[in-house]
């Protein structure tokens, strides 16, 4: 059968959500991927799949039917006193909405990968607001781009070429030549090497640096010490001058701000800086969201519940208090007595101490691929790959929703179908309470 090219495919890996991908399909299988970066190409090409649902018996996995796996999952969740439904970042919004319905039904905690990633940004926004824009504004207008605590060359490889640096825009027709790019990081990363300027900062000193920049911006450079976090005052003054004198500046923030000392306070401070810069020129901030639909999970949860992550439904209404209700909070307190990991891999990305507790409780994994979570799971339900075998909505890092495409057929159930069936069975078990 002839090879067919599917165009304008939306890449389901990182927060760039590139939608110009070309996928070559032969005999119902993906044989090649064009235009994607290695992260996206690998995702779309796929890997060995979990073949069938499995239930762990005496330490070993036994293959079972979807019906059996769903039945056992529903039993566990219906009886649990403090269930946690975690993940949600690497599947489509339609499935996320089903997940919220399930969480409400069983009074569960529902949390997304944001709690180990940009949760600090969300909380920072809740303190100071989100002065942002869509990526096209950066493409067309930005002449100053600052990557702070992020490394797009490794995590968002096409970001610079599609949105921020070499891309040509309406008012930046010469691309790179019309823009200046700063990288601020604790080490000279691959992105630092392709930037115009790399500013090395000591780990945990971002908050101080933002305070220093704001102090200089406010006209009080005289009280700033000679170095702040390893950055020379002259450099900080230079940075403020560059920021004040640009026509349109943007700060892209990453894990260097969200996972380090001060956490969300770093974000409150950089947001305040961006806010104060708006008195001088146009300035914005966009968080570099890691997974392709973690932003979608935040949006979906927010419109359905009022809050974007770390939600506790045990009282019958949504209760939100990251630091108390995020996944690692409740796992570390050993409160959770049953857990579902769906489209998120806590086995790989949670600290060991949380895994120690996860090993003791019933763990249901819903995922196309085996991963460290599978090693701890008691029930494994493989599903179709969202964005490749299932179409649905994803929200890019800047909030733009794009519909991912279905490129090939699948025999697997979709996440939405599995959740629907678990929900139906849970309702029966709970008898309409």
């Amino acid at each position, binding site marked *: 059968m002839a090879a067919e090219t599917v165009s304008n495919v939306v890449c389901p890996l990182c927060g760039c959500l590139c939608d110009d991908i070309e996928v070559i399909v032969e005999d119902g299988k993906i044989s090649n991927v064009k235009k994607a970066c290695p992260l996206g190409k690998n995702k779309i090409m796929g890997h060995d799949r979990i073949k069938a649902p499995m239930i762990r018996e005496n330490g070993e996995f036994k293959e079972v039917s979807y019906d059996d796996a769903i039945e056992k999952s529903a039993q566990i969740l219906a009886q649990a006193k403090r269930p946690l439904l975690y993940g949600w970042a690497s599947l489509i919004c339609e499935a996320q909405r089903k997940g919220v319905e399930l969480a409400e039904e069983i009074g569960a905690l529902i949390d997304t990968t944001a709690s180990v990633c940009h949760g600090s940004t969300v909380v920072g926004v809740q303190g100071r607001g989100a002065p942002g824009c869509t990526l096209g*504004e950066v*493409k067309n207008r930005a002449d100053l781009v600052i990557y702070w605590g992020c490394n797009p060359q490794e995590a968002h490889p096409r970001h610079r070429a599609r949105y921020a640096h070499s891309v040509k825009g309406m008012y930046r027709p010469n691309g790179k030549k019309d823009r200046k790019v700063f990288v601020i990081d604790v080490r000279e990363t691959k992105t630092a090497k392709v930037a115009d300027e790399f500013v090395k900062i000591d780990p945990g000193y971002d908050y101080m640096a933002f305070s220093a920049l704001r102090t200089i911006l406010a006209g009080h450079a005289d009280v700033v010490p000679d170095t702040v976090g390893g950055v020379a005052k002259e450099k900080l003054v230079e940075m403020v001058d560059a920021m004040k004198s640009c026509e349109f500046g943007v700060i892209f923030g990453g894990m260097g701000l969200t996972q380090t000392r001060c956490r969300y306070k770093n974000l409150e401070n950089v947001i305040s800086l961006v806010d104060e810069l708006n008195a001088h020129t146009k300035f914005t901030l966009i968080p570099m969201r890691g997974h392709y639909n973690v932003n979608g999970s935040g949006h979906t949860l927010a419109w*359905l519940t*009022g*809050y974007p992550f770390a939600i506790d439904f045990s009282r019958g209404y*949504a209760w939100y208090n990251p630091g108390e209700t995020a996944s690692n909070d409740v796992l570390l307190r050993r409160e959770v007595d049953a857990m579902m990991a769906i489209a998120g891999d806590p086995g790989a990305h949670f600290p060991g101490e949380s895994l120690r507790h996860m090993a003791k409780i019933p763990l249901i994994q819903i995922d196309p691929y085996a991963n460290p979570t599978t090693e701890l799971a008691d029930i494994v339900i493989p599903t179709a790959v969202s964005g490749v075998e299932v179409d649905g909505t994803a929200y890019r890092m800047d909030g733009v929703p*794009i519909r991912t495409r279905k490129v090939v057929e699948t025999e697997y159930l979709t996440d939405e179908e599995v959740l629907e069936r678990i929900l139906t069975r849970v309702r029966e078990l709970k008898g309409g309470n």
Partner: protein
Amino acid sequence: MTILIKNGVVFDPAQGIDGEKMDIAIDGDKFVEDVSSPDEVIDAGGRMVVPGGVELHTHISGGKVNAGRIMRPEDGRKGRIPRGKLTRACSGFSVLNTFATAYTYARMGYTTTFEAAMPPLVARHTHEEFEDTPITDKGALVLLDNNWMTIEYAKSGDLDKLAAYVSWMFNASKAYGIKIVNPGGTEAWGWGKNCSINDPVPRFDVTPKEIIKALAQVNEDLGLPHSIHIHCNDLGHPGNFETTIETYEALKDIKSSSDRQVVHATHTQFHSYGGSNWGDFESKADAIADYINKNDHVTIDLGVVMFCDTTTMTADGPMEYSLHTLSRRKWSNHDVELETGSGIIPVAYSPKIGVNAIQWAIGLELALLIDDPWKVVLTTDHPNGCPFTFYPEIIALLMSKAKRESMLETVSKAVDKRALIATIDRELTWSDIITMTRAGPAKILGMSDTKGSLKVGADADLAIYDIMPESFDPTKDYKTIEDKLMRTVYTIKGGEIVVRDGEITATPHGRTFWVNPAGKKAEAARDGMLEDLERMFRDYYTVSMANYPVQDEYIPHGVEIRTEVN
């Protein structure tokens, strides 16, 4: 299912019915002449029976609403209601989750709600939220005034291509009407600037006035059901009433394509300001009302401010930023490439602050000074002026001078000198109120065949309130208005009982109305327009044109309204 509502005291201004005792019959999802052996008989017992409320301007679904929710968990905590047998968990006071929005409107007797501002690039988001907002019928107004394509065509005067673009965008965003917000100014805000009605838009060299006129003309050329719906330039600025009147005047000579206004000007309270700074700020509601009384081509909605801590959100990015410079409260901003922008910031309106008290007065003054209730729609620009849950109290204020006097004792004395409310005696009638909340908005939207009335053939959307108009004096018993208008005895939506005694009894999906402008007018310059549009996608957008239009999957309950002008 057939329903007979007996012994109601009916107010249906669209049919000239003003407090008549009569029966109303429903068969399926429509009102009918009568029914024999009805499946359900409701004895209204002398209570008010009115059409379902039509909310023609509210911010309930989409990017900036969600930005408000995410930014304000403290607002979420104010409205916590646990899930019920039929209802999902609720949250929010000014930024409600979709379920709270749906249930609260339904409990208050509203059955049609229009999302006031949808950025086309993010339209998918509005429609996803619509699907999670049960009960009410819905529609969305799409932002088309700061779009680079619109601005270019307004500049070149190529209205055929603009018509083709508007048609394409309505299809691509599944929109009901054209929304204009701070035209030119929100594009200028992409550079941190702003502009007023006669300032050339930076780097585009065409004025907002020319953009407004171009869109108004195209709106009529395409025969769209609704007129352009405009948030004028200079919102919130002292002295802006002049810009407002200049905007209305600019559209005087446009011929309407149907029996309705040429421009609907929204939340006019925010646009009726006199003075030149916050110190001499004063009401110019009289000047605006005077203009509206003398001209038939403009309709308005109020945008009433009430005293509370609410969340403002509009596509008027620069205005929201300037609110931030005043109060320093947390501020979110979201400029949308090639199209529009938005700003979101909490605002606390206080009766002790002179400016806020005057704003509160202005909203009421407009309603009381404009003679014809068909030209005035009751809104709060939810949540900008206050949440829509303040409607009962606002209605009480409009119907009772005694209530106004009581409230005037608690507000800043600035109102005495720089507002008019204390001098106005008029008390609105039920007919006025029902016109302003049902018949009027339905007509303004171009939906009077199906909405805003109990006439035969209209959608069976109806509300029964526990008020006995024949023995009730709203001018004195205003407390009763405030209590009873919060929860209906019955809300019926499309012939289905969705509220009984203030409790939700059913949560059907509502429908999403959208307009497909077709015909020669829409298609003549399509090829040329598409060449220009393709260039925009190729060179400037960051999504591909193939992925841009809202797919049918997002409107499973969509109702296409096709207009065809040849």
